[in-house]
């Protein structure tokens, strides 16, 4: 579309008029006159709420995809930690199955299981779970289990346990969490799924018994969840 010079001139004049008006309106003396008025106050409050919500809405919509991608990358990294790379060649984020988990008390009513496949055959599964009863809040973990029910790896994703005592459940602080590798419900009796203080197999920490105790119990419940759905998961 092409505008003739006369139209452009007219538009320019109009804009100049508007600018003049806005400039006068924004003069501190004019605003000082307006400020005590109720309509003006309501308008300013509504205006700032509108601007704030539009700004947040636009930002949220434009970054939603990016944030989701970042979260997927994070999840992928955690999955890679608990399932050895040799066991899968698929994208575990796309191969998922939801199973009900209310009765196992692992923090969620439904658990998303990520399925590892090697040349199309299911080799292992992996899911996030929670010990809801840690010493100071929930302990979020992720576990990888091979198709026979042996633990491939467990990692703590986030927790609020006491720094210096309870945080030895992190792999960065101690190798305690590695003592679960290779364990299964078959090669360790139910009574042994406890810390040594309770007659079990796993170490507690000096000064922190509750954190490892609750972690062991949650891992045990996680394995039970796998066992309950083993057939459905590995032979779909």
């Amino acid at each position, binding site marked *: 579309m092409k505008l003739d010079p006369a139209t452009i001139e007219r538009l320019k004049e109009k804009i100049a008029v508007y600018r003049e008006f806005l400039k006068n309106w924004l003069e501190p003396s004019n605003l000082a006159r307006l400020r005590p008025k109720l309509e003006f106050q309501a308008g*300013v*409050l509504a205006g*700032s709420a509108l601007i*704030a919500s539009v700004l*947040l809405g636009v930002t949220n919509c434009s970054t939603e995809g990016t944030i989701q991608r970042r979260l997927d990358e994070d999840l992928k990294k955690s999955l890679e930690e608990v399932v050895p790379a040799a066991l899968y060649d698929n994208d575990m984020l796309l191969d998922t199955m939801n199973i009900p988990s209310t009765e196992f008390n692992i923090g969620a009513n439904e658990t998303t299981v990520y399925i590892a496949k090697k040349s199309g055959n299911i080799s292992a599964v992996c899911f996030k779970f929670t010990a809801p009863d840690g010493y100071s809040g929930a302990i979020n973990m992720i576990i990888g289990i091979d198709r026979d029910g042996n633990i491939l790896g467990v990692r703590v994703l986030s927790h609020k346990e006491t720094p210096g005592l309870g945080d030895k459940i992190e792999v960065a602080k101690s190798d305690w969490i590695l003592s679960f590798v290779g364990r299964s419900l078959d090669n360790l009796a139910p009574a042994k799924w406890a810390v040594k203080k309770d007659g079990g197999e796993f170490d507690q920490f000096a000064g922190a018994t509750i954190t490892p105790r609750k972690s062991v119990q949650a891992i045990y419940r996680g394995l039970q969840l796998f066992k309950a759905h083993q057939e459905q998961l590995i032979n779909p």
Partner: protein
Amino acid sequence: MFISETYRKIAADGIWNNNIVFGQNLALCPLLAVTGTATNGLGMGLATLVVIIASNGLISVARHLIPGEIRIPIFVLLIAALVTLVDILMNAWAHELYKVLGLFIALIVTNCALLGRAEAFASKQPVKHALWDGLMMGLGFTLVLVALGAAREISASGMLFANASLLLGESFRFLEVTVIPDYKGFLLMALPPGGFIMLAFLIVGKRLIDQKFAQKKVPVTVLTTAIAGEES
């Protein structure tokens, strides 16, 4: 560089005399929550610095538009919106940093110092002064956070700036030092009570320094009272 008297006064105010923590006793919630280590303190400080400059600037720009009767809801609205914006943008574009700082960003909303600066300074001052004040108040706050974090970290674990490379990048790994080798650890200092105890020591230290200066030359106290008078 030439800095006029006003700017110098704002700077002295923000960093020392009327420091958010030492002078105004504000922002204790985020302060005590994150200063377990110097690195966390630095992260919280930088995040707060950015938001307080932005909120001061924004409120100063709009100061003639905001009627006195409804200023508080508008300040709260603006600050909350700003914090959320920073939170979303960092999550998307600086995700690694966000994983370290994410917790602190949301905590900035609970920082009453932002509202305090908006109310006491930005809403009455020209934009340039407000931005400068935000910068200086933010720096002052960062300084206290790092000092408190360092003091707690050294006494709790004998280390300094642990995990700084996660926050600032690999090139800052040199900051991570073990101050006391073979330290057995003093857990209390890493826990919330340690924050209160250490903060008390730091405030005492600041008062002692102030006292010494006051004895040396009188004008310092005059300046402080003049500023305090202006604030109220």
